[in-house]
């Protein structure tokens, strides 16, 4: 059964259809939300809220894009709005965490686990731009619209974010940071 039919059934309250839609698109939705949030529990909350909202708003899904694309955009927008409201709170919470060291710089910059951990430790503003641009492949114009900033701001944030990521992935950076060194 295709998404279009599942959506029609879900509009009528069919739980199985909702579950099928969830199963088909949950990874993509959770991935972008998790990358943006930088935190497991927060990501689960955000993803959950996005799905609930999607099922509530199915009548507004007009089929102009695929359901997966609509759902992905909805989840991204919701996550960004919520994270914007959270401000810098989670940035402070991250300071005590130690990044596990890599054997070498070459290992670090291509190691998915270390990259993911470093992403989580980025300041939220940097993380959002870096995730949207480098991970999700959005253009600066799209990011500017999503974040309500100028495209130039998106570019500038991206370069700062990459530089910060590079620092975080440098062997020994965790120890230096724990000792209060820049």
């Amino acid at each position: 059964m295709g998404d279009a039919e599942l959506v029609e059934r879900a509009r009528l309250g069919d739980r199985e259809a909702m579950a099928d839609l969830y199963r088909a698109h949950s990874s993509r939705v959770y991935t972008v939300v998790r990358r943006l949030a930088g935190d497991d529990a927060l990501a689960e909350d955000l993803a959950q809220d996005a799905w609930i909202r999607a099922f509530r708003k199915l009548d507004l899904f007009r089929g102009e894009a695929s359901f997966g694309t609509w759902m992905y955009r909805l989840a991204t927008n919701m996550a960004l709005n919520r994270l914007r409201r959270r401000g810098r709170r989670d940035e402070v919470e991250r300071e005590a965490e130690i990044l596990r060291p890599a054997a070498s710089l070459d290992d670090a910059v291509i190691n998915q686990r270390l990259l993911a951990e470093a992403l989580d430790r980025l300041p939220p503003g940097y993380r959002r731009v870096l995730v949207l641009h480098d991970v999700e492949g959005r253009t600066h114009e799209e990011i500017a619209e999503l974040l309500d900033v100028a495209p130039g701001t998106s570019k500038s944030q991206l370069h700062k974010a990459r530089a910060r990521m590079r620092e975080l992935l440098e062997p020994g950076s965790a120890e230096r940071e724990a000792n209060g060194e820049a």
Partner: protein
Amino acid sequence: MSEHLERETLSALIDEPETDPGATGHLETCPDCRREYETMRRMRMALSALGQLEPPAAAWDRIEARLPEVGRGRRWLRAVAGDGWVSASLRAAAAVILFAGGVALGLRAGGLPGEPALLASGPAAHGSEGSAAAPALAGDAAAVAGRSGVMREASKAAGGAGADPASLALGAGGPASRRGDADLPGGASGEGSTSSRGASPSVLASSAGNDVSLPDDLPRPYRAVFSRLEALRAQGPSPAQALQDPQAAAQHLARLDALIRASSEALRAMPADPAVNDFLFQVVAERNALDRVLHVVSLDYR
């Protein structure tokens, strides 16, 4: 350029190598900066190749637990009519709502003989807001019923051959006075016999649509009201249709408003009942969604 390039500059060169000839020139002559540039470029490529993540295994369960507030009433219909887990009192409460909603929607306009008596005996006839709404909606409901033939079908289903119109009413006492009687909310007037009067469940189900499955032991009067109510709600326009035909949307909005009033009336009688609360919530959500469409305030997640 003798000093090494900043990492931010190197980052910019990854995306737009042509925009800074001075930096590009330095990169060609400085092995340290070239190495750093390559490292950052590899990092950028690795980021774009980050794999997908899976949500926690129990995530759907948590979402599903919040889904009772989602849907357009049909799911609630299944909860009431469905798998046998619903308690008798819940079913009775649901029947009260269905009846109240049906009354508020002006079902007497379907041409059934004796239907004014139904209105007179129901909760909306006791000076509530719902009773005021019913006459105004009568014409609309009749038009809907006339198009679909649902009410005639419901009449046949409820009464079978030589249907007794009185069996469609709950009785003089009204539902609130008998809510302890699970199977027969109208039981105080001796309507226990109605459940054995034998309308075919399959016929009843077909009168309300293919996806409606009513339990065999649901008292017949509620079956009829239920079928009509669902049929009327199903006549509601989709958001796209509402945009094209605001008049039809406004009419449906009025039906939903009447249903909300009727549900609120029932909620006063049983304020803690989860089914009543859930139903009211859903109708309000449906009403608000339609209202938003009418005002062309749609969410556009581009």
